[in-house]
């Protein structure tokens, strides 16, 4: 296993994404080449460099805690795949 081998089957599971055997094979090849390219970054010395998460760091942005109108329940539920009694229906989670 070279350093650019990516275990697509495992990662897909983490991402909650089912893939076909063909997709797994294709992605392993394509993403292996992308990771090989990305290895460029290892050439750089980044000791003592601060990471950038946002280009304009703004911290603790809060707004007044004032109640306001929310979206109507029926508008929100209209986009749900399955509903009943103003609730979203999902498969049983707890046995």
């Amino acid at each position, binding site marked *: 296993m070279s350093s650019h081998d990516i275990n697509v089957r495992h990662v897909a599971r983490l*991402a909650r994404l089912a893939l076909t055997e063909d*997709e797994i094979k294709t*992605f392993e090849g394509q993403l292996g080449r*992308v990771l090989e390219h*990305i290895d460029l*970054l290892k050439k750089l010395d*980044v000791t003592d460099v601060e990471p950038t998460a946002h*280009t304009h760091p703004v911290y603790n942005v809060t707004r007044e805690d004032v109640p306001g109108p929310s979206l109507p329940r029926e508008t929100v539920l209209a986009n749900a795949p399955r509903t009943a009694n103003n609730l979203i229906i999902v498969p049983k989670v707890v046995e």
Partner: protein
Amino acid sequence: MDLATLTLDELQKGFRAKAFTPVDVLRTLELRIESTEPSVHAFLTRDFQEALKAAEHADVSLPLGGLPIGIKDAINVKGHPCTSASRILEGYLAPYDATVIARLKTAGAIPFGRLNMDEFAMGSSTENSSAHITTNPWDSSRIPGGSSGGSAAAVTSLELPAALGSDTGGSIRQPASLCGCVGLKPSYGRVSRYGLIAFASSLDQIGPLARSTRDCAMILNAIAGRDPMDSTSLDLPEEDFTARLDQDLKGVRLGIPKEYFVEGINPAVRATVESAIKKCSDAGAELVEISLPHTEYAVSVYYIIATAEASANLARFDGVRYGKRAENPKDLMDLYLRSREEGFGSEVKRRIILGTYVLSSGYHDAYYLRAQKVRTLIRRDFEAAFEKVDAIVCPTSPEVAFPIGERANDPLKMYLADIYTIAANLAGICGISVPCGLAEDRGAKLPVGLQFLAKSLDEAKLLGIANAYESVSGWKDIVSPI
């Protein structure tokens, strides 16, 4: 006079002089759209009757009164479909207006139609749309660029005077370049992202595509500003972005990054861009060679950060609260796995996998954290450059529009073509692509864009420089073949 050929500014003058009305314009555009759409396919859907009703009541004294503006399918317009060109959002109706839409409406504009794009804005060709392929108005066998390909194609085929797009790594500027219109990516934080379906939250920014720099400035005036619904939007003094459009290029210092004119650029594109830069210098600009030493790392940094953020943002599409749900799931895990499998296209899956991988246990520091550190170095390159120059001038894309299907199986090659646009998103600065001429590729003549980049929040200066170039570019004499 063909109303479809007019810019926003010209339409507005006509409205106010009572030469024609917003209804006249919409009726003209609808005819135009009917004749060009069978080959361009820029729209996913459009509601002409609703727009007509808005046009009938338009107040043309407002800043954008009565002007139709097309909307990329990633931006919510209340009551309309909003799918980001993905199967997973089939049937979804936007329950609210994005802040940019609310602001356009307040300014009197008429948001019109849903414009095609690469699924979730992931792509550079609009071939990743789950709906259909949009073609380049200059050559229907070629791609319009992407991801805002529908927006660029609609504007250049004279279906609409202007449109909104979104730009995460070049998705406004690159299609503007490949189709031959103006596309502006504002600085990060300039425009609210509330109501834009998120791709990479630290890079995404909404901006205009139009047929002139002035029109982009007019739209930016309407959509910019702090929004309590987006904590990353910046609280800045109000600014008129059209204020510096009368400036010329005399004494303007333009930086030419030496790293941008090396390998990988199509020679015809290079020649077109170099002659455009010469026009800037003939018009009085001072050309300064600069260095952006970390250029070669930008694509790698981008594809780590953008996919990492995307993998988190797209976790919300799980088949539970909205969007597509797989039939007869045997349990909740099966519902997640299959709803996402059936709902997402290949490129989106590929990027979710890459993004999940670079964030996963054991790899986070080697990839994601390192990429964020190199992002700092890229940002510093630009800060140092803008000490010496007013703006940077360079190609928008190393190539012209390529034939449909040519890149489909080579994602790395597609990613590498983003080299000139992605650094602006990583650094949070503003950038604009302006048409600068045609270059020949395998017998076809295709548009080339010239990109100007300016430091963060320097849009007024950027637009002034772009507009001054536009007036000497000679582009107005070039007529689109469609």
